[in-house]
């Protein structure tokens, strides 16, 4: 059997920081190759080199023994390498169909873009992924999960022999992941080579054949997955066995910290009520787009519900809140909101870690007051979050995806809020860091804080939380103690509603 | 014989007659005027006021339409076309450039509307009659003054107006004319855009670069004031410098008593244009070309016009009534 692609002794440094040191990787047709490693291990960098985004400092890439190199993504694509990048990169002002065909639009004899063909094909491609979106919708109007799907559709729709999927499932829930896995298997069966990057252990074991582990930019090893167990894989990545992913739950809770009453998300939806007590971590679970996010965002004015009220530490506020002032109003009552979309809503990619970490501290103060350095807060956050970064002056955009997520969380932890509203606490975070974030959240609750969290990873919700509300059709259909919840009964509740 | 303005003469050569009665029309009349730029500077504002005042004085003119091209050729073409569309009885034009309005002037005349031109020549002769203060003459009056003061030799600075403006080029040509055959050299030549601030910048730079200068040819009053201020600021003697008929400059001239001449270029040309249009509509005989080449003013003449109680921005000579002068220009 010929090796489709060989990457030999690839090294790459950014400025002074080395991202890859002599990493080799062999991709075979008809197989799914998992690439694993902690945040900042160099997975994305390695794949960006294969995709023509970066040029290696040293090392070579061969296809069937012939040396190849790409000056830019277009060359790589033309060569048959299609990539779903980790950071969502669709163009917001273009429709789904246009995004799908960008760079390879069909034209008719007169040079006109064949929109009809694009539309039909797009509808098909989306249908294969189980989606019924209108191909003429602008991407800016899609939810983040829908965007991720379009991104995937774009990647796997290409006429390519090598597919790179860099954390494609970070914004997807379990059922969606299964749809994607079916596709990956189909591509594999067609003889394509697939690189699959994910921090979710179960996915790796579900679809992949081989795994390569990177650590600190160096190759740890490549093994067939049939020889591995989750435990041994984690040990290979982290260098030790991870005993407990989730910390122990709390026993007793304090007063009610957050009380949502008679919240009608839409004029026609059934009112819902939710309460969170001090010391408690409460989750909103459910299928994609059923209203969980609207509940959370209604609390900060980002979504305008039809009616309702919220009581925070005894103070009642009528909803909807103003979009402009909602966040600040909540901040003033020591409530922090962590948005899910770290690239667009979360981080200042071009600014330093220090700036990113300290913005919320600054924003609670008067404009004309003196700006503080917050050096100690920044240092302790970097330490407690275990951020892999050379120093606090480097731009956040140059961090790996997972480390970016840590910075985002760190910003809101630093505000000393006592109620956290979190969307996706561990999106794209490696398993070691996940465990640390869970511990931080639990410690926060134990210190008297309350947490309302939203996640697409059902296992995470079960393990992390105390209580779970299942949301369907813009209302709460049931609530359960996390200790008694299973993936099955949550899904059951969500579906049978 | 129609009297248009003091100092206006009729050149004898190549000067056809506009036959009597050709454009005769019964009153009331609507007269249109296309200005190259009403708000270009205080002089152009005054031209507009002089024209409006003259039109208001004649009760047979029921409507006077003043349009402003704002130094934009395209807009002037459009303005003239709009006036034709409104079927005005006569059009007065201050052309933005010597060619840009030609086509639309031809259109107006073809539509039977007489066209009076002033404060700017054009290359075509499609218009009906024109009153032109020779810009060359204006520049030459200033040039001759310098030649006389310097006894035909020395170094001068030249402060020009707006680059690319025909008025600037023609005034400059007048200077070149008077320098012919003398030993006067142009040591520096800069555009001050007829503006106080730009001219001041230029003069400061020139002075600091090389303060030795025997005379200054300045093509506008605000520039003269700026340059004189620069010399005063550096405590230097003010060399002979040319100026024009502006109240602010006159005040400075009288107070500091330096050597200067004032070229005359009356804003009342605005009124003269109205009088020419009226004469045509009355059916009087006019000449095609009227020249406005008055001699320069000396300090004594300036003193007779200078008005302490009025602001710097009145231009002399003016036909505005005492009331209007007070209304527009009274100090504080």
């Amino acid at each position: 059997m010929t090796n489709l692609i060989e990457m030999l002794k690839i090294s790459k440094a950014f400025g002074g920081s080395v991202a890859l040191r002599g990493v080799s990787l062999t991709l075979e047709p008809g197989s799914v190759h998992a690439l694993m490693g902690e945040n900042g291990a160099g997975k994305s960098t390695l794949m960006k080199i294969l995709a023509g985004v970066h040029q290696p400092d040293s090392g070579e890439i061969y296809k069937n023994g012939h040396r190849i190199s790409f000056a830019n993504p277009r060359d790589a694509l033309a060569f048959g390498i299609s990539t779903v990048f980790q950071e969502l990169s669709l163009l917001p002002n273009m429709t789904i169909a246009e995004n799908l065909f960008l760079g390879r639009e069909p034209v008719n004899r007169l040079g006109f873009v064949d929109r009809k063909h694009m539309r039909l094909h797009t509808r098909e491609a989306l249908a294969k992924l189980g989606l019924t979106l209108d191909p003429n919708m602008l991407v800016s109007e899609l939810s983040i999960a829908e965007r991720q799907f379009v991104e995937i559709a774009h990647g796997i729709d290409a006429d390519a022999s090598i597919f790179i999927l860099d954390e494609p499932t970070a914004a997807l829930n379990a059922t969606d992941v299964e749809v994607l896995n079916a596709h990956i298997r189909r591509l594999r069966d067609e003889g394509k080579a697939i690189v699959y990057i994910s921090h979710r252990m179960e996915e790796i074991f579900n679809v992949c054949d081989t795994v390569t582990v990177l650590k600190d930019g160096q190759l740890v090893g490549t093994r067939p997955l049939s020889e591995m167990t989750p435990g041994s894989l984690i040990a290979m990545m982290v260098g030790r066995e991870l005993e407990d992913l989730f910390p122990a739950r709390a026993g007793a809770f304090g007063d009610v910290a957050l009380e949502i009453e008679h919240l009608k998300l839409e004029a026609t939806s059934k009112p819902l009520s939710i309460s969170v007590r001090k010391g408690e971590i409460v989750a909103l679970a459910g299928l994609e787009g059923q209203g969980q996010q609207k509940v959370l965002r209604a609390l900060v004015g980002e979504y305008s519900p039809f009616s309702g009220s919220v009581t925070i530490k005894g103070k009642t506020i009528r909803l909807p809140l103003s979009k402009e002032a909602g966040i600040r109003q909540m901040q003033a009552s020591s409530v922090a909101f962590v948005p899910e979309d770290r690239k667009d809503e979360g981080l200042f990619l071009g600014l330093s870690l220090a700036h990113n970490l300290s913005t919320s501290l600054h924003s609670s103060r008067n404009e004309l007051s003196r700006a503080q350095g917050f050096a100690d807060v920044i240092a302790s956050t970097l330490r407690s979050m275990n951020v892999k970064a050379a120093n606090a002056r480097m731009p956040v955009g140059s961090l790996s995806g997972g480390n970016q997520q840590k910075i985002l969380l760190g910003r809101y932890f630093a505000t000393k809020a006592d109620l956290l509203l979190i969307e996706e606490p561990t999106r794209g975070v490696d398993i070691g860091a996940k465990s640390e974030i869970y511990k931080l959240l639990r410690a926060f609750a134990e210190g008297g804080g309350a947490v309302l969290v939203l996640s697409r990873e059902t296992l995470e919700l079960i393990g992390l939380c105390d209580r779970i509300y299942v949301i369907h059709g813009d209302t709460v259909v049931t609530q359960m103690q996390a200790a008694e919840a299973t993936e099955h009964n949550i899904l059951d509740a969500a579906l049978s509603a | 014989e129609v009297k248009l303005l003091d100092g206006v003469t009729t050149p004898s050569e190549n000067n056809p007659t506009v036959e009597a009665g050709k454009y005769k029309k019964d009153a009331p009349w609507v007269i249109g005027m296309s200005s190259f730029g009403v708000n270009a500077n205080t002089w152009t504002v005054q031209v507009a006021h002089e024209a409006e005042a003259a039109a208001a004085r004649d009760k047979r003119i029921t409507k006077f339409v003043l349009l402003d091209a704002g130094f934009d050729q395209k807009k002037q073409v459009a303005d003239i076309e709009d006036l034709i569309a409104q079927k005005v009885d006569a059009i007065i034009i201050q052309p933005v450039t010597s060619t840009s309005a030609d086509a639309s002037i031809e259109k107006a005349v073809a539509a039977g509307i007489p066209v009076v031109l002033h404060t700017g020549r054009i290359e075509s002769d499609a218009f009906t009659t024109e009153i032109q203060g020779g810009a060359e003459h204006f520049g030459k009056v200033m040039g001759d003054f310098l030649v006389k003061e310097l006894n035909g030799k020395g170094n001068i600075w030249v402060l020009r107006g707006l680059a690319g403006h025909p008025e600037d080029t023609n005034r400059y040509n007048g200077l070149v004319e008077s320098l012919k055959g003398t030993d006067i050299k142009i040591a520096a030549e800069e555009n001050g855009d007829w503006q106080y601030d730009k001219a001041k910048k230029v003069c400061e730079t020139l002075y600091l670069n090389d303060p030795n200068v025997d005379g200054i040819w300045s093509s506008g009053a605000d520039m003269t004031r700026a340059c004189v201020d620069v010399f005063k600021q550096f405590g230097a003697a003010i060399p002979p410098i040319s100026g024009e008929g502006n109240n602010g400059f006159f005040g400075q001239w009288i107070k500091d008593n330096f050597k200067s001449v004032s070229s005359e270029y009356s804003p009342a040309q605005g009124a003269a244009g109205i009088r020419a249009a009226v004469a045509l509509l009355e059916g009087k005989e006019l000449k095609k070309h009227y020249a406005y080449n008055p001699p320069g003013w000396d300090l004594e003449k300036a003193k007779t016009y200078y008005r302490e109680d009025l602001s710097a921005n009145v231009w002399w000579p003016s036909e505005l009534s005492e009331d209007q002068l007070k209304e527009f220009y009274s100090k504080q």
Partner: protein
Amino acid sequence: MGRGSRQGLWALPLILAVLMSFFLAFATAQFANSGNLSNLVAQGMPLMITAIGQMFVVLVGGLDLSVGSVVSFTTAILALDAPAYVVLPAVFILAGVIGFINGFCITRLKVHPIIATLSMQYVVLGITRILRPVSGGSIPEFVTASVAGSIAGIPMPVIWGVVTIAIAWKLLYGSRYGLHIFAIGGGVAAGSTEAARNFGIPARRNIMLAYVISALFAALAGVFLAGRIVSGDPNVGLLMELDAITAVAIGGTQLSGGVGSLQGTVIGVVVLGLLSNGMNLMNVTPFVQTAVKGILLMLVVALQSRKKIGL
């Protein structure tokens, strides 16, 4: 909906243009007569052509401040003492070169569009003033004839307008290039040129082409203007770039890139044209015309409330 929301807010200026037309038709006797209407087309044409070119650059998130100078430059070249078959191709070649240099400096040498095109504005204006210090010269017969008169009862300026719009329409909506223009602009507005390049779009080449298109359209406007003023003039295009940008923005095109439309740009030009023609016909004194223009502009943008804060 689909493409609708990428086209910017052009419905409001359209309504405004219609209202203004009705108002003028009733309030003044001359507005609706054919003479005035064809004047209106001819008066607005140079601005329309330049604004359409400018729109391409704005859509990729740039700005072209050099178009006014290119217009003047074109009239100066046309007024050189040379036959039409020499000067006519020459103006387009030279404009192409100017656009190329703009685009090259911006995409390859990483110069900010405002700096690159402002510098170009100075350079081209300087060269124009050397070529033709004051207005004058004569324009080839062919050019003057092409803007005057009519063919089969259709006035020449109308034909110019239709042809220009058709070319722009084909470029923007009838080709891959047009789609890429929007894609690149969308990326730039969202913060990176790389976004479109990651899709394999030759972003920098396409941006460069937008500047070439802008310059070529400016040259076309210059040819039209030269035919109308029948001479070369170093100042004829002065400040035209600001009018062009204003027209583009009134038409709902966002200056941050990626959102806008051809019809919007044309409507923007119509609004500006109706404004100055209307005020002339209504005999609004020149001392308040400027203020009225400003207030109306302000009204248009105030009512076009967008999602984004900024340019």
